[in-house]
C-alpha cells in the first residue's frame, strides 16, 4: 500500500476498492483527504497512508437541478435533482461528495449537522467503471 503515490489518481483507485484513503504527515500528524504529497502545515513531505472510517456530519449541501453533462447523462434534471455536499469526517477533514438517502425535492428536511455514513456509487461508463464517493444519513 505504501508504494502508491499520494495523488488524486491513487485516491480514485482506492475509492474503486471502496476505501477512503488519505495521507498523514509523519512529522506533524496532519491528515489530508484526498491525499496530499506535501504537508500544508509543516511543509514536510514524508507521508503515510491512512484509512478514514467514513463517518461524519453534513457541513453544507445543495440540491442541483441543472447539473453537468455527466450527471445529466445519469438521468438527473430539473424534475429529478440530486444532492451534492461537504461532509466533515470524524478525523477532522472534509470531503466533497454526493449525498444519497435524502429527498432532493425537500431541501428543508436536509439539515446541516446530520450524521452521515459513507457509501460508494459505481457507474459504468462504456468499458470503464467509475466509483463516486457518497454519504447517506446514519
Amino acid at each position, binding site marked *: 500500500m505504501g508504494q502508491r503515490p499520494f495523488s*488524486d489518481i491513487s485516491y480514485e483507485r482506492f475509492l474503486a476498492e471502496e476505501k477512503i484513503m488519505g495521507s498523514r504527515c509523519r512529522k506533524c500528524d496532519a491528515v489530508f*483527504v*484526498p491525499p496530499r504529497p506535501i504537508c500544508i502545515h509543516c511543509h514536510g513531505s514524508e507521508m503515510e497512508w491512512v484509512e478514514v472510517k467514513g463517518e461524519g456530519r453534513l*457541513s*453544507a*449541501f*445543495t*440540491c*442541483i*437541478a*441543472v*447539473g*453537468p*453533462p455527466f*450527471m*445529466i447523462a445519469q438521468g438527473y434534471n*430539473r424534475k429529478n*435533482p*440530486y444532492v*451534492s*455536499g*461537504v461532509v466533515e469526517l470524524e478525523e477532522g*477533514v*472534509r*470531503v*466533497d*461528495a*454526493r449525498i444519497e438517502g435524502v429527498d432532493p425535492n425537500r*431541501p428543508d428536511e436536509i*439539515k*446541516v*449537522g446530520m450524521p452521515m455514513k459513507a457509501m460508494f456509487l459505481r457507474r459504468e461508463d462504456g468499458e470503464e467503471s467509475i466509483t*463516486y*464517493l457518497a454519504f447517506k444519513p446514519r
Partner: protein
Amino acid sequence: MSKKRKLARGVAIVGAGMSKFGMFRDKNSKDLFADAFQEMVASVGKGLDIDEIDAMYLGNFSNDFFVNQSHWGPIISDLVGIAPKPATRTEGACASSALAFREGVFAIASGFYDVVLVGGVEEMSKRTTEEVAQGLALATVPYEGRAGFTFPGVFGALATAYFSKYGATREDLMNITIKSHNNAPLNPKAQFPLTIRDIMKKKIESLKKRGEEVPGWGNEKDFLRDSRVNPAVAWPMHLFDCCPISDGASCMLLVSEGIAENFTDDPIYVAGIGQGSGRGLHACDDLTYFEATRYAAQEAYGMSGLAPKDIQFAEVHDCFSIAELIHIEDLGFFKPGEGYRAVAEGRTRLDGSIPINTSGGLKCKGHPVGATGISQLYEVWTQLKGRAGKRQVPKKDLHIGAAHNLGGTGGTCTMTILERR
C-alpha cells in the same frame, strides 16, 4: 498575517472605458473591446497619444472554450494599434482582469513602464447555457466537479452553511437581489436594467395577454418565492440569485503618479491592492467565509493605511447573492454573521451607509467573466469622478471606493482601493 506592502512608485488611473454588457449576436470580443477602448481614449481629459502606451495586460478567462480562440493578448493589442508593444494575457477565472490591473500597476511601480493599458474581455453568449455552465465549471476544484457540484451548487452549499451558522434564510438573500435590481435601471450599460417590480409587472401583463391566471404577487418577495418564475438552480440558489451569461469588455489607462496630471486634472489613485488564493470547499477552515478575500483585504488595507470604515462604497463580487453577503463581511464592512441584518436595514442600498454594487452588480450589470474585474473598477472610478449620473452615491466628499473580485470557487480573490485626492 501578510506583510505591509507598498508600491515603489505610485500609480494613477487617467482614463477608463467599458462596453455595454449583454448578449450580442452581432458583436465579437474585438468589437466589444473597441467600444471600451474608444470610450477610454475619449475619457482622458487632456488627450492621449496612443503611441505613448508602453504595454498591455488583458484579462480573459476562457474565450478558448467560449469561441474557440486562444491567445487574446496580441489580437487585442493589434486591434487598438499598439502592437508590436508587449501584450500579456492574465487568467484568474472570473478575476482575470483584476489580475491584469495588478500586473499593470506592478509594471509601472517597478519603473519599467510609464503608461500601461489594462483590460478584460469575454464573449460567452455564442454558447448554449449548458455549454457555458460546463465552461465555467473548468474553474472549480477537481474534487468539487467529481461530486456533481456546479458553480451555483458550490455557492448554494456555502449558503446552507451560512444559514445554519447564523440563522439567515432565503428571504435575506432576496433583499440583495432586490437591491441590485433597484440600482440597475440607473446604469445605462447594465444587461438587465429592470427592477424586480418591473419584471413582475411585465410578467403579469404577458400572463393577462395570454388569458392565463395571474398569481396574486403582492410584492417583490412574493414574486421571488414563486418557483414558477424563480425556479431552483441549485437550492437554495434560484434563478434570481444567479448572474447571467454575458459578453463585454472593459479597460483602463494606468500611468505613473508623477505624470498623471499630464493626462487629466482629476486622476484617481491606486491606494491599495491585495490578492489571495483559496483552496476549494473541502480544504476551507470554515464554509462561511472566503480565506482568499480576507487575505486580499488585509493586503489592500495594509498598503493603503485605510480601514473598512474608511471605504465609502464598494463593488463586490456577487456572482451569486450569497457571495455578496459573505464578501461584505470578509471585507470588514460588517461583522461575520451580521451582514444579512445590515442588508435588511438598507445599509447597502444606494442611499445607505455603505452602498454596495451601485452598478447593479454582476447580477444585473452582467458578468462577462474576463471583463468583470476592470468593469468593477470602472464603476468605482466613475463614482469617484462624480460621473455616475442617477446612480451617483449621494455622499459629500466622495473620495474612497473599493472593488472586490473573485475567481472560481474562491480560488483567486482581489481587493483594490481607489482614491481621489
